[in-house]
């Protein structure tokens, strides 16, 4: 039975699924990395994802216009990021709990609108796979890496960009300064609140794209609680990745590999109870959190609102 997993087409399938399934995790976790680097823990990712997943799905269902769907997704993400910034930066609200508030809001609103405007799930035609010329013809590798939709490619292009912005630009330096020592950054003339507003808006937009990637690129459908906690796992992946984009990518790939494996195990009918198989990625995440917790250090000002002592 297990030998089936070693078949070349199965391995190719699992690896291609891994690359595809990692997409929403990458967008959401990279967005979260920006926020956390600047000292804000945004736990509302899942809620933002649900709202944008529904909205983009609904727009494509009504108009078929993928460009419009992405435009609205980005606007929604920016608004939700602004909202989180208002709550956690300006109003100094406890970040863990306000994130849960945004999650519940998104969970309820997306479900409400779905039931009222759509009712029963209808499949849509989302982003199509684009085979990259020449490269997609490489055996195995071509299938695994170069036959995906635009949003999947986008996620992998985002990683080096995020790394560059965080490590090689003044903006990135300011983000890190504000996350490590906001008082010192403030005394050097960095506007702490403004930097955090910017990172949270970036995070909101990327979370929204993560949600859209689920509903109009990977699954091409919407249902109640479509994300099923994916946004929370993305937050865990930021801890796993120690706030570094390439390690976050690695975490996303490991997580989606286990997920893809789990799906294929069920497809092939290998006798591992499906409930236990579904459980594995979560157990893995928990273990990874335990292992990484001792070795890495979070941004010093994470979850602490900044207030000038005047």
């Amino acid at each position: 039975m297990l030998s089936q997993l070693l078949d070349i087409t199965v391995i190719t399938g699992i690896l291609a699924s891994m690359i595809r399934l990692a997409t929403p995790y990458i967008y959401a976790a990279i967005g979260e990395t920006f926020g956390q680097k600047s000292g804000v823990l945004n736990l509302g990712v899942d809620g933002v994802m649900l709202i944008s997943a529904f909205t983009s799905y609904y727009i494509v269902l009504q108009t078929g216009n993928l460009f419009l769907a992405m435009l609205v997704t980005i606007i929604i993400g920016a608004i939700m990021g602004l909202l989180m910034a208002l709550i956690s930066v300006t109003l100094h609200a406890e970040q863990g709990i306000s994130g849960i508030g945004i999650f519940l809001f998104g969970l309820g609103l997306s479900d409400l609108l779905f039931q009222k405007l759509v009712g029963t799930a209808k499949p849509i035609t989302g982003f199509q796979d684009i085979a990259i010329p020449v490269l997609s013809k490489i055996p195995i590798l071509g299938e695994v890496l170069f036959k995906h939709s635009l949003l999947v490619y986008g996620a992998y292009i985002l990683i080096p960009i995020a790394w560059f912005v965080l490590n090689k630009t003044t903006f990135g330096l300011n983000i890190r300064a504000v996350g490590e020592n906001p008082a010192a950054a403030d005394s050097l003339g960095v506007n702490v609140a403004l930097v955090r507003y910017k990172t949270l808006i970036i995070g909101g937009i990327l979370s929204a794209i993560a949600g859209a990637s689920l509903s109009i690129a990977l699954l091409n459908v919407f249902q109640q609680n479509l994300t099923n906690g994916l946004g929370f796992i993305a937050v865990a992946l930021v801890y796993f990745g120690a706030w570094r984009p390439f390690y976050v990518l690695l975490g996303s790939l490991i997580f989606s590999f286990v997920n893809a494996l789990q799906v294929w195990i069920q497809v092939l009918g290998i006798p591992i109870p499906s409930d236990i198989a579904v459980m594995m990625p979560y157990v893995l995440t928990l273990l990874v959190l335990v292992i990484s917790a001792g070795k890495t250090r979070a941004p010093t000002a994470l979850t602490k609102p900044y207030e000038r002592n005047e």
Partner: protein
Amino acid sequence: MNKKFIDSLFNAFLPIIAVLLALLIGAVILLLIGANPIQAYGALINGAFGNKHALANTIVKATPLLLVGLGIAIAFRSGVINIGGEGQMILGALSATIFGLAFPNGPAIIIVPLALIMGFIGGAFWGGIPGYLKAKFNVNEILSTIMMNAIAVQLMNFLLRGVLIDKNQMGAALIPQTPRLNRAYDLPRLVPTRLHLGAAIAIGLAILVYILLWRTSLGYRIRAVGLNAFASRYAGISIDRTFILSMMLSGAFCGLAGAIQIYGLNHRMVTDGTAVGFTGSAGFNGIVAALFGQLHPIGIIPSSFFFGALLVGAGKLQRVSQVPAALITTLNGLIVIFVVSSEIWRKRRARKRAIEQAVVKKASPDIIENEAR
């Protein structure tokens, strides 16, 4: 008038303003989806309080919210954010159900209390794991409790589809559910409605949690660590032990909520594959109830009653106005956001008071800062 009195009045009004704001935004959402807000909210109130059965249902819905809310309050008071109520409820329910099935013909007066204690222990176990991971490995409890929720759901599905499944079912496809517990084990009904003893247990426990938090040394330690972990360490309090204990207690109350849900209401455990199918999101809504009750055990009693009413009213709302019950989840989210955002005004007032008093006493600035916290 007494300034302290004005302050406490101000603090009590903040959450009420938060709810009114949420309801106002809810009204806008209702208008946008083409429903009449006045009619909709009317249906909601009618559905929650319209007759004695509606009222009984409201209290029945409020019971798990109160129990979970008490657990959440204990954890939050010690500075630990427990998002794992859903999973802890499931583990409590599983433990209590397995116990009741293992002793199918015992005397109810002994079996039922023991089963509820098993639920308490099951929840404590599931809550204790993230507490331990936080204390020993500094694992963020928000993330670990969320993972524990997902694991609990699959564990429940695995057990209910496997060893615990009721084999005496009609039909070809077996529903993933346990056999019904002995009818003798049903918690007694209080009046001829669905209202069961669980509500009374929950209210009794709210008073006990109040005593625990404000009249015992464990409660003092829990609150001290929550207010200032650093200072508590200097005072000789073990932070690690307090984290683990408060998470165990927190999980225990959530577990008990699950156990009471089985013995008072469902009498067997059924799964539809999701956590919500069993908990009805009480593990999350209990957080909302706890925050709204200002993390005070007695405050959580009316608060959970209010949220129970919202949930029961939502059913009527759906039938009368065709507004999906998901509206309530949306409102709950908004209430959480507004309640935590309004904290800043409470803190500012507290600081202002402290400074005023300090000026009178000519106290040093450090004391001002400390009193403000």
